[in-house]
């Protein structure tokens, strides 16, 4: 087991190194010139060249990448071109807000997915089942920013139940979390339904029913735990989806997380921040997958032997 773990960790490190290299090359070859942007509109060629030298952008490309990597090894993500502060510090300051949003979003997803997935599975092929599955499709087909604006329009602008934007209290979390959660809940509902249908057809469920257990008890205590594995695997994958989605949701709701940081940096071609956020997002994605893999044998003993 420790050997497998070590291998998985090495793989994860390799993937992160690859992400760093690809992002580095992409940002280097894209037409935006950070030196020109930092120097400002009125700068002449000499000033731009000076800035380029200051930022180390005139060094040979492999050397630039090496300097970046050695910095990374020391937890140094470089300095923002525009804000002049440490990228690592900027990101660390923003991560708690994003984590709160992510956790709340996943909570909404899993709760809705469980309730509606079980409902659909138990009443398979009924009207309720079809309705839930259709709604699940609507959820996964919805443009996130439109849902964000719709929730704002109804619950903030018209009814005034929640603030339009900002951060700090529980009421600020509700609408962004619903935006993230409502759309993803469809996937969970579909998956819970199909996992439950598989399980409900198995012999031990019939046995449990035959020995006189109530339907509710069979569904919740005997069948549901078997749906835990796909749910956890899905959360692992979902973390990655969220890292992209937070850019949009944080932009609409003015949520001060790393998505907003990235969005501002993208508009200013602030390469070190873009690099940093991409790397941190990839780290989240890789960790999400690793944790899901690690949880699998705990949740399903049948996997342990493999």
């Amino acid at each position, binding site marked *: 087991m420790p050997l497998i773990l070590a291998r998985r960790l090495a793989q994860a490190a390799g993937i992160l190194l690859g992400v760093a290299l*690809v992002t580095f090359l*992409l*940002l280097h070859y894209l037409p935006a010139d950070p030196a020109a942007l930092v120097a400002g509109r009125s700068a002449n060629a000499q000033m731009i060249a000076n800035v380029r030298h200051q930022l180390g952008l005139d060094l040979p490309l492999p050397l630039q990448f090496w300097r970046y990597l050695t910095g990374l090894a020391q937890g140094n993500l470089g300095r923002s071109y525009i804000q002049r502060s440490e990228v690592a510090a900027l990101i660390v300051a923003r991560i708690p807000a994003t984590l709160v949003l992510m956790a709340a979003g996943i909570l909404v997803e899993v709760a809705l997915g469980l309730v509606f997935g079980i409902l659909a599975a138990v009443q398979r092929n009924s009207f309720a089942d079809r309705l839930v599955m259709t709604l699940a499709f609507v959820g996964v*087909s919805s443009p996130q920013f439109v849902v964000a604006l719709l929730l704002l*329009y109804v619950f903030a602008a018209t009814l005034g139940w929640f603030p339009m934007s900002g951060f700090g209290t529980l009421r600020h979390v509700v609408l962004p979390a619903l935006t993230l959660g409502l759309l993803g809940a469809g996937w969970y509902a579909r998956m819970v*339904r199909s996992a439950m249908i598989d399980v409900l057809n198995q012999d031990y469920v019939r046995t449990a029913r035959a020995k006189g257990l109530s339907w509710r008890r069979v569904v919740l205590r005997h069948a549901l735990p078997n749906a835990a594995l796909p749910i956890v695997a899905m959360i692992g994958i979902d973390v990655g989806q969220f890292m992209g989605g937070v850019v949009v949701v944080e932009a609409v709701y003015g949520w001060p997380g790393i998505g907003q940081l990235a969005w501002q940096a993208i508009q200013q071609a602030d390469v070190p921040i873009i690099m940093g956020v991409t790397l941190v997002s990839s780290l989240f994605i890789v960790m999400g997958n690793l944790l899901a893999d690690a949880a699998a044998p705990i949740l399903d003993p049948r996997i342990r032997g493999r």
Partner: protein
Amino acid sequence: MSGLTERPATTVALAVILLVVLAATLAPWLAPFAPEDQPFDGLSLEGAPLPPGAKYWLGTDTLGRDLLSRLLFGARTSLVIGLVANGVAVAIGMVVGIVAGYVGGVTGATLMRFTDLMMAFPALLLAIVLAALLHPSLWIVALVIALVNWVQVARIVYTETRGLSERDFILAERALGAGNARILIHHIAPHLVPTAIVWGTLGIATTVLLEATLSFLGVGVQPPQPSWGNIIYESQSYFQAAPWLVFIPGAVILATSLSFNLVGDTLRDLLDPTQRGRG
């Protein structure tokens, strides 16, 4: 194809897709106004956009342009990007998946490690970065979307090709002296057609959403060329005063993406009998 008519939702979805295709192809004839036209009565006396009414059926935008006309022309943008971007993504995914799955060895392993690497990228973030820094145009947006969307297809095609190449009938064919080209064209490719069809459909839903998102952030298709996403981008600050400018295009985006998802899902059921009835 009887399965299609058994599902009322899919029938409606097909009708919606047909409608969008018609809107896109016939936009110049259907649109009551030119999409860039700013008629003198397009704004109220106070300079506000007009709500849906008799002359401007779906109202006008903040520049006084007819929303219906912009939506019709926007259908062109969305559909062209949907078809091109998704077509390219499916093509890249098929090639990578087939080569990695059939050739295997170092080439295959390298390709799949690269695919894993792409899976670890936050796709939307990558697309936003690329689109923003590349000075977005319609084709750039399509290309960016294709570059982040091929990964899933590659993984699925890889698994299928691997499974197929280990089957006995392929071995038999090889023993009979068939070359790689013959095996790939006559025995592997036909089995991958359903995957290509399903992802060719489902992927359009993803693509339409991604284009709308990029355009909404202002890094997609650039105004004045109308796209469903940039119509919302241009009017989002007025969404309280002129909600129709945000929610009518929003509903159009949802209907289109939902329809492609429904049809794709039905196709998957029809083409893969093992999935039937499992939803």
